[in-house]
């Protein structure tokens, strides 16, 4: 196996809730106590993104999928763990050392209404990253580059003088994609790029992303909650729950044979066109808060197969016969 393009090792991210030292101190039962609280957004995630693939990360709100995306991009610094790009550690780089990686790694955000600067024309929006990352280019070269990316995403290059608000949601997302493509990246992190769009527009943007992958040889880390999109788009899928990866598999294998009880419930909940009644595996309770994580397997409180071991010991990702990696004691012990 060739070395992965992006590798995440033992990634953890906590967001502090308790504020400054003074805010942490409370007076209780005649004594001062210091209390620290944090949201445990990611709790030990290992992922490898191979060259040319589209690794999809799926999960419900609060599972930490967007935090993974942002930490990989360096928008957040990890509390523990490492991020490697092409064999080099990048999460601890500072200042000028980061720049070459910023050019190779680009991000597409969920909401194209928020990710485009309303005071810049499209031409300016697209020229800025090129001028910044490739200062050696002349004005004409920058312009022709902008012309090229606009054409490649299906936006008329004559519209460069317009502002973001003059475009529809789908067109704005095309422009956001053009901005990411403008610096010829190798790796793109797409955080729910089609969730804010209408069905008929989703198909257009998804096709565009697949086309760009083929013509530019891109690698994707694709964050989404939409499993139908994953099935269509992804090479491999990582299912996340409460800051941990619970199952990692080839897309085909995962959809044909989900192993983790959470993945099974998640897949059964997708409304399908052929159904004439909701038909799903019912989970007990709700997702626990990431402030006080459950002991052992994070899913044990809702899992019909949980036993004492699940309540105490955290399961690790273990490869099964079909190549799927599952973090579940029940699967490991053959109970499931």
């Amino acid at each position, binding site marked *: 196996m060739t070395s992965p393009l992006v590798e995440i090792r033992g990634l953890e991210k906590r967001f502090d809730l308790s504020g400054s030292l003074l805010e942490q101190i409370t007076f209780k039962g005649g004594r001062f106590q210091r209390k620290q609280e944090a949201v445990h957004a990611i709790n030990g995630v290992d992922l490898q993104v191979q060259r040319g693939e589209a690794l999809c990360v799926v999960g*419900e*709100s609060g599972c930490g999928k967007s935090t993974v995306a942002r930490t990989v991009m360096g928008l957040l610094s990890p509390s523990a763990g490492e991020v490697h790009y092409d064999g080099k550690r990048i999460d601890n780089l500072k200042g000028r050392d980061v720049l070459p990686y910023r050019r190779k790694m680009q991000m597409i955000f969920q909401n194209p209404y928020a990710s485009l600067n309303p005071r810049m024309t499209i031409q300016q929006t697209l020229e800025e990253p090129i001028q910044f990352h490739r200062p050696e280019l002349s004005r004409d070269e920058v312009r022709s580059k902008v012309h090229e990316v606009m054409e490649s995403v299906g936006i008329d290059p004559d519209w460069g003088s317009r502002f973001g608000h003059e475009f*529809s949601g*789908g*067109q704005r997302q095309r422009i956001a994609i053009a901005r990411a493509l403008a610096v010829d990246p190798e790796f793109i992190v797409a955080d729910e790029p089609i969730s804010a769009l*209408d*069905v*008929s*527009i*989703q*198909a*257009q943007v*998804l*096709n565009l992303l*697949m*086309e760009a992958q083929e013509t530019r040889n891109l690698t994707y880390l694709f964050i989404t*909650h*939409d*499993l*139908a*999109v994953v*099935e*269509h*788009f992804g090479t491999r899928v990582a299912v996340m729950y409460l800051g941990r990866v619970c199952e990692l598999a080839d*897309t*085909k294998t995962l959809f044909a044979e989900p192993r983790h009880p959470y993945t099974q*419930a*998640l897949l*059964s*909940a*997708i*409304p*399908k*066109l*052929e*159904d*004439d*009644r*909701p*038909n*799903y595996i*019912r*989970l007990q309770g*709700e997702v626990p808060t990431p402030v006080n994580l459950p002991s052992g397997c994070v899913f044990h409180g809702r899992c019909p197969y949980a036993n004492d071991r699940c309540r105490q010991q955290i399961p690790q990702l273990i490869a099964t016969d079909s190549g799927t990696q599952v973090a579940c004691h029940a699967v490991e012990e053959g109970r499931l």
Partner: protein
Amino acid sequence: MKNDTPLLEVKNLDVRFAVRGGDLTALRGISFSLDKGERLGLVGESGAGKSVAAFSILNLIARPGYIAGGQILLEGKDLAAMSERELRKIRGNRIAMIFQDPMMTLNPVLTIGTQMVEAIKAHRRISTKAARDIALDKLRKVQIPSPEKRLDQYPHELSGGMRQRVIIAIALLLDPEIIVADEPTTALDVTIQAEIMALLLDLCEQENVALMLITHDLGVVSQVTQRMLVMYSGRIIEQGPTREIINDAQHPYTQGLINALPQMGEPGARLFQIPGSMPSLKNVPTGCPFHPRCDFATDQCRQAMPDYVRSGNVDVACYEVSNLIEQEKRMQEAGS
């Protein structure tokens, strides 16, 4: 199965918004009916007029919008012609509404119990104690854990799924005959969406309540409804039994919507895409509003809006379909 007079009948409804530079027509000639206990889906992309249609049923169109023509008949009585006083007796009482965002519909500074009691007492002269009992009963019906506790809790203390259950309980408070649900699960995760949809479906069946479900998710419509309407640019372009439309859509737009779903394509292959996007209300194309995006458009389509034709049990507004039906008829006549 149909009774002589349907429970709700909307006839030729026109809704306009008075803005500077003339009126915008948001709904044009909308006609449909809803029988007792029937579940009807209303599908379309943003800007199609689904929500305006839902709001107009309760005559809730706020200025600058107004009902410009047509009738909304609830058992023969026209809601469009009623006074606010008369309408207040129907809203929440005979027709209840569920909105998309439960945080927007619940008052954040009142407890769940206060809000529920208030709604009951607005319509019935009963004691607070009796009203609380009704509220408790409805909370039990929506399967909220420890309902007695919830009555004294504030909305922010509940999770998203739980809030939506409260909203459904409030909608059921006065035993309505119709529930209008405007994207009730769009803000929720898939597993919770599945639970809420199943709950809504069960309750409507148990209590024989008619449901009008507005959504953009064809999977949900297929699971829950018996009949569906497809809207485009303020018009109904196709309506009929849900199964029949999902399995064999007649209108090119409906076909496009279904084929654009990722689950319809081969994984990795390009998705079917409808070119362009929905026109804004400011410049609706002449004739059939879909013609600029339609593969079958002819001069006829550009000139006049097609009338409905019947194909099987489905009513479709499309010249291509009506021409095909004509052709078939002629062939049959020639054959005999």
